[in-house]
């Protein structure tokens, strides 16, 4: 495969400012520049052109995985990471590279007017290079997005498991959302830890916010209840809605002597009774 001609490179260098203007214009019309400050965009485009020229100048060839392209790879990684954080989609991010093609090809066409064979060859080369760079952008963009999603998942997990103290010696855990094994694990750990920290004798798990209870969820609940019992505390499950009670009976689930209550108030009342406390009206 033929390498890029030095004359192509020269043309690129000479027309850099014009290329920059056309590219920026292209970016704006395609919507890839949305939400990005004009100044930042200008900086990014000129940096990128500079990097690509210096990359080509050093004769690094078209394989962007070689160390010679390290700088531009890093630049693109930073770029796609910031785009991901801005909430742009992959198409908008990738068109940062791909919209350079138009102005660049026009430039080459102009430059190689007299030799169509050479033009085709050079176009192919430059297109290969830009495609590879575009792919790299998409790949890193995806990675950044995945990192963002993972972080959010972890935060949600933390948010969704608050252990609250209802009374001296009574803890409550209002569960919201579907119970899966990962969540159960987190819930169990934080609840057990709080039981140890506070020395609470009774823990109430409120499942009002759990949309459905199937065999798996019931199994997770039972595991938690058993672990609490092993630690030496008691567990009450509250917030069993009529539909959930029906499902549990229909599925034939055995809750093995777990105390269940229809709502949190009843559970608290039972907990207070067990602690030997009574709540009465002040006269």
């Amino acid at each position, binding site marked *: 495969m033929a390498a890029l001609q030095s004359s192509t490179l020269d043309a690129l260098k000479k027309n850099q400012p014009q290329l920059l203007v056309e590219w920026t214009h292209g970016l704006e019309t395609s919507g890839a520049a949305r939400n990005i400050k004009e100044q930042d965009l200008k900086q990014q485009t000129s940096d990128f052109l500079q990097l690509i020229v210096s990359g080509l100048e050093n004769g690094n060839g078209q394989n962007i995985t070689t160390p010679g392209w390290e700088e531009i790879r890093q630049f693109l990684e930073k770029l796609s990471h910031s785009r991901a954080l801005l909430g742009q989609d992959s198409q908008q991010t990738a068109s940062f590279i791909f919209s350079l093609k138009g102005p660049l090809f026009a430039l080459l066409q102009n430059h190689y007017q007299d030799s169509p064979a050479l033009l085709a060859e050079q176009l192919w080369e430059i297109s290969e290079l830009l495609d590879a760079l575009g792919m790299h952008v998409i790949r890193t963009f995806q990675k950044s997005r995945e990192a963002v999603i993972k972080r959010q998942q972890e935060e949600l997990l933390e948010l969704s498991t608050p252990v609250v103290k209802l009374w001296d010696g009574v803890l409550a855990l209002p569960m919201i959302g579907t119970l899966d094994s990962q969540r159960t*694990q987190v819930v*169990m750990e934080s609840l057990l830890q709080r039981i140890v920290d506070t020395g609470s*004798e009774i823990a109430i798990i409120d499942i009002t916010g759990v949309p459905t209870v199937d065999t798996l969820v019931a199994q997770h609940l039972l595991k938690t209840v058993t*672990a609490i019992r092993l630690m030496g505390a008691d567990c009450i499950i509250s917030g069993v809605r009529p539909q959930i009670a029906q499902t549990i009976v229909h599925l034939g689930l055995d809750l093995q002597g777990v105390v269940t209550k229809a709502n949190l108030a009843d559970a608290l009342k039972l907990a207070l009774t067990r602690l030997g406390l009574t709540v009465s009206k002040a006269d």
Partner: protein
Amino acid sequence: MERIPILQMGDFLLVTIQVDMHDQLALTLQDDLSERISRTSARGVLIDISALDMVDSFIGRMIGTISGLSKIMDAQTVLVGMQPAVAITLVELGLTLPGVSTALNVERGMKLLQERVRNQ
């Protein structure tokens, strides 16, 4: 030979496991405890495992066995101070220790034991 001490407090025996249990130690404890119960005719056994932060299935089963054998020898058993990690491990291993009484700490365990013996 390494042994886990068994302390006598009135009618009760107190076993505190302060070291990591290994199989031989658990077997020795089982023998010692049954021998002590029969010698002192203790009414209750309190096993404190608050310092135990790792269990395997063998030790988990042994805890169940120890409380089971004390019960047969007419001594109420209370297991106290299980760490969250240990509780989770036992549950995941499927060792739910049915019939074993538990309490959060030694103080509460003692109270529970006294209540049980009184009600007998």
